[in-house]
């Protein structure tokens, strides 16, 4: 009896060890968003990177952190919406690249002005492979900005596909703009404007 118990204990622990990582591996959406946010805050508030010479390196580091959390393809697909299906694979690739750069640049500019704002994680809703992480940013001007990250599970990771700031969805906003440009002129015109904006 004691022998059996002795045998069972390691097996039990082995099972525990084996199964627990499966549950917690990818983390929750909040953990994912928090992980990236903390990384970016660490980069932005790093005094070593604050000098003008290090600006390039800082941008590169932020870009790397953002890249692994944002799903550029999903974002592009949702922004182009019904125009997405009409594009060739080559065009899709080009668009993902351009749009990703535009978003990165916008995000970089917003993040660069970071001055000790507090980020509070308010709520999280998970629905299958979709999730929403609600965040509140408290600025030094005593205003609260509510931000919602919409995430979708890809493999083991939760990747961001839309950000809503005070109820204004970034993707919806771009969709309206892009649709208007495509309808009034053409897709070529849109790509031209995107290139111009990104400075390529």
């Amino acid at each position: 009896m004691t022998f059996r118990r002795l045998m069972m204990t390691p097996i039990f622990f082995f099972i525990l060890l084996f199964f627990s990582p499966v549950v917690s591996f990818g983390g929750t959406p909040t953990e994912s968003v928090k992980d990236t946010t903390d990384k970016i805050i660490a980069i932005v508030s790093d005094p070593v990177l604050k000098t003008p010479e290090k600006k390039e390196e800082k941008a590169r580091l932020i870009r790397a952190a953002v890249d692994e959390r944002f799903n550029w393809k999903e974002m592009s697909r949702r922004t182009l919406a019904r125009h997405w299906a009409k594009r060739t694979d080559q065009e899709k690739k080009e668009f993902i690249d351009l749009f990703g750069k535009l978003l990165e640049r916008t995000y970089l500019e917003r993040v660069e002005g970071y001055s000790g704002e507090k980020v509070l994680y308010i709520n999280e809703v998970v629905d299958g492979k979709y999730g929403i992480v609600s965040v509140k940013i408290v600025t030094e001007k005593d205003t609260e900005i509510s931000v919602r990250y919409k995430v979708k599970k890809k493999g083991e990771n939760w990747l961001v596909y839309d950000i809503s700031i005070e109820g204004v969805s970034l993707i919806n906003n771009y969709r309206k703009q892009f649709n208007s440009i495509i309808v009034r002129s053409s897709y070529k015109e849109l790509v031209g404007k995107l290139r111009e904006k990104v400075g390529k």
Partner: protein
Amino acid sequence: MTVLECCSGDPVANRNTVLMGGHTLTHSLTGVPVFFIFAFLFLFFWLSLAWGGVEISSPVKVENPYYSNTEAHEITGPHSTGDRFLIGEPVGSGLDLKMADLQGSQKDPLPDKEPEEQVQGEEEDWMDEEDAQSPLPDPLEPMNRAFYHFNDKLYFWFLKPVGIGYETVFPLFARVSIRNFFSNLMMPVRAISCLLQGKFKGVGIELTRFMVNTSAGFFGLQDVAKIALDMPLQDEDLGQTLAFYGIGPGFYLTLPFLGPTTLRGAVGWGGQAFLNPLNYIFEDWFPYLFARSFEIVNNTSLRIGEYEALKEASLDPYIAMRDAFYQYRLSQIEK
């Protein structure tokens, strides 16, 4: 008329002369009626607090996130149209009731999502998102664009330089306090909007906020109510009240000096002019305009960079502004 004069004579006669003599409220406020007004306000806020439930929930409180979230999906979420039908259906027939029980016993918080995702392909889920939001009509686009450019130039050539100059003179603390002061003055707009929408707790919060911030917060310079009592500002206005009663937005409008709004919003602004205490405090147009400009410059100095960011990030700033305004408005109305 001074306070002494007012109090020495017959109060009713005094009030009548004041009411007949001028259209301002300031003089009548200094007399005996001030007691009645405050007594009424106190009674009113007490009653509304009792009516609306005394416990004031903090904004962080999470109660059944799933259901609060489906509401949000009706406007912006990825699975919008399907949600309502699938939630409503199981209660219908006997079989459905059994199904509902079954789903309930499984304790699946999101029972309706599975079939939908199977039907819906990967490529299609943007459709709901696009259709869920009925677009805001913009028949006056050429005019709106012209006014948009006017406001754009007004900002870059006048408001922004003045705001930057102002920023260097006044410290952040002072500017935030001045913003709080003007925001505190606008209490009647928010309280009445809450009242008209039946948000009695909101009315109570607004009146309490006004009393606390005006007294303990030094005439509203400090937002004590939010910090100490956890009573945040109730973001309501008459435009949202009209929306609450099912009045549509009409169409998009950009007005010179005033910025983006809708036909409904413009009507709301018209009504709010009567609720704005600044209109009653100043008899002349000049000091009113001065106070208003001061408020605008002060608030602009706190928001420098926001418009630039929007403009910088967009390919068509006019459309970006129109959509951002509309999405923001929808989220305000939803609350």
